[in-house]
């Protein structure tokens, strides 16, 4: 593995979840042991009602420096811009021109919204569904009725592009779309980018929603997120978390406060079908090795749950194997059962909540955040309480 000296710390967190429109509210709600309110969507002709969690109170407007962009914003964009703006404020960078910093923007989403209702409105009354088969009919209707902005609200890359527009972030900018682990991957890639000296500050995270009509239709067709389902035993939800990752020296020089340090990351694509537990193990072993930790030293592992019973069983056994059963203090936590499945936002939400614990609770020192997609793609991120250079004692800085 690469030997590099650049340390990477987390200096800002922004978040929107079903339990809170910002990071402190979410943390407080979790500490009160609240769970997000679910609703059930019944579908005529289907025996499997869907479990859904929607964020209702969230007001995106206050987070948009240029409010006109709101008409181009899909749900993921609203969630991403809000989390990114709050993360920058939290990091104490809101008065700093990003153009003067070496920075990047990496936001993960798992799909893009077709905006079915807008498409249907554009087609208009069509009881026989001619639009589906008669293309001249379809094209006449859609060319007459579809708002020219539709494509721009649908294009997935606009999620990170809008973050750049709102924050005037001219650095490299990507939307990652690697299924449910896209947000975790954004954090991993951002970490490597700083570690290898390519940049100093990365806005990394995920913004996702699985509650649009088309999402619900697809999930229902495949029997996912249903009240009866064994396949995914979670509610489909929405949310976002964006972290400010920063070069340690850079952060120190500007007097930033740290949540924690990222020690390593391992990104293991889904191998052949059926070998999921080995992929999980591989990613955890790799972060332990690179962080120079032993399994039993890990205080806590958090998983962004797949919600799939088979995968989650594989998870539990892999954690046991990788971290050792001798550790009695090991905590295995997951937030998805209380927040719902936030897809590509789930990894970043979990990283952010772990970072918060590291900054506030002395009993946490070494933690691993693990995200798994339903295809078996496994990404682990190892985080540790920030230490002063060359000093094994804990950094006493805390977040209030």
């Amino acid at each position, binding site marked *: 593995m690469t030997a590099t000296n650049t340390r990477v710390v987390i200096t800002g967190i922004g978040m929107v979840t079903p339990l809170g429109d910002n990071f402190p509210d979410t943390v407080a709600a979790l500490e009160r042991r609240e769970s997000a309110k679910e609703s059930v969507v019944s579908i005529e002709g289907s025996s499997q009602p869907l479990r859904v969690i929607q964020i209702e109170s969230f007001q995106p407007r206050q987070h948009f420096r240029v*409010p006109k962009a709101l008409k181009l914003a899909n749900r993921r964009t609203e969630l991403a811009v809000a989390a990114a703006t709050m993360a920058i404020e939290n990091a104490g960078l809101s008065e700093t021109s990003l153009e003067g910093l070496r920075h990047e923007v990496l936001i993960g989403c798992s799909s893009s919204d077709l905006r079915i209702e807008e498409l249907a409105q554009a087609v208009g009354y069509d009881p026989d569904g001619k639009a589906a088969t008669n293309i001249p009919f379809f094209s006449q209707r859609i060319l007459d009725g579809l708002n020219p902005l539709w494509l721009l609200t649908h294009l997935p890359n606009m999620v990170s592009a809008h973050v750049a527009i709102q924050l005037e972030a001219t650095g490299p900018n990507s939307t990652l779309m690697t299924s449910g682990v896209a947000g975790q991957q954004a954090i991993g890639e951002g970490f490597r980018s700083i570690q290898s000296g390519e940049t100093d500050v990365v806005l990394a995270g995920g913004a996702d929603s699985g509650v649009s009509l088309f999402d619900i239709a697809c999930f229902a067709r495949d029997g996912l997120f249903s009240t009866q389902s064994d396949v995914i035993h979670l509610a489909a939800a929405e949310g976002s978390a964006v972290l400010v990752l920063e070069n340690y020296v850079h952060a120190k020089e500007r007097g930033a406060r740290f949540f924690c340090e990222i020690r390593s990351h391992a990104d293991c694509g889904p191998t052949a079908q059926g070998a999921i537990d080995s992929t999980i193990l591989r990613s955890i072993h790799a972060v332990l090795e690179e962080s120079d930790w032993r399994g039993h030293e890990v205080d806590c592992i958090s998983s962004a749950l797949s919600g799939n019973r088979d995968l989650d069983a594989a998870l539990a056994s892999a954690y046991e194997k990788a971290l050792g059963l001798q550790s009695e203090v090991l905590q295995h936590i997951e937030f998805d059962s209380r927040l719902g499945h936030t897809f590509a936002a789930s990894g970043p939400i979990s990283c952010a909540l772990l970072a918060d614990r590291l900054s506030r609770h002395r009993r946490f020192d070494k933690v691993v955040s693990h995200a798994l997609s339903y295809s078996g793609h496994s990404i682990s991120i190892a985080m540790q309480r920030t230490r002063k250079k060359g000093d094994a004692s804990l950094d006493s800085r805390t977040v209030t």
Partner: protein
Amino acid sequence: MQASIAEPSPEVIDRVKKILAAALDRPAEEISLSSSLIDDLGAESIDFLDIQFRLEDEFSVEIEDEIWKGSLDMSDRRWMIEDRVTSEGLKRLRSLQPEYPWDRLGKEVRGADLPRLITVRTVVNFISTQTDSQSENKD
């Protein structure tokens, strides 16, 4: 094409203003007939498409893309040479858009500046002629 246009009805003005307020995310009271869509209301190129789409819907008229060139047609070589508006062209523009605060533009006016001359009145006038001709047709 400079047929005299009857003073547009307050009702049309009001509906146009509402559309612009929604499309450009501005309070309606900030919008006046002489506001330039670009300079004063912050419109960018896709907003013109959006506004056009909303106008078609609101007034049930077909609007060709030419609405944005219409009164500002500078295709004649006397008015514009190689992307630069000639002094003759400038005279024409000033007479077409007397309300525009001309001191905003430098000495040289280029093709790319032309859309800046589009004001709320440009839109209102266009809609008035369209809806007029439509009602004539119906008669």
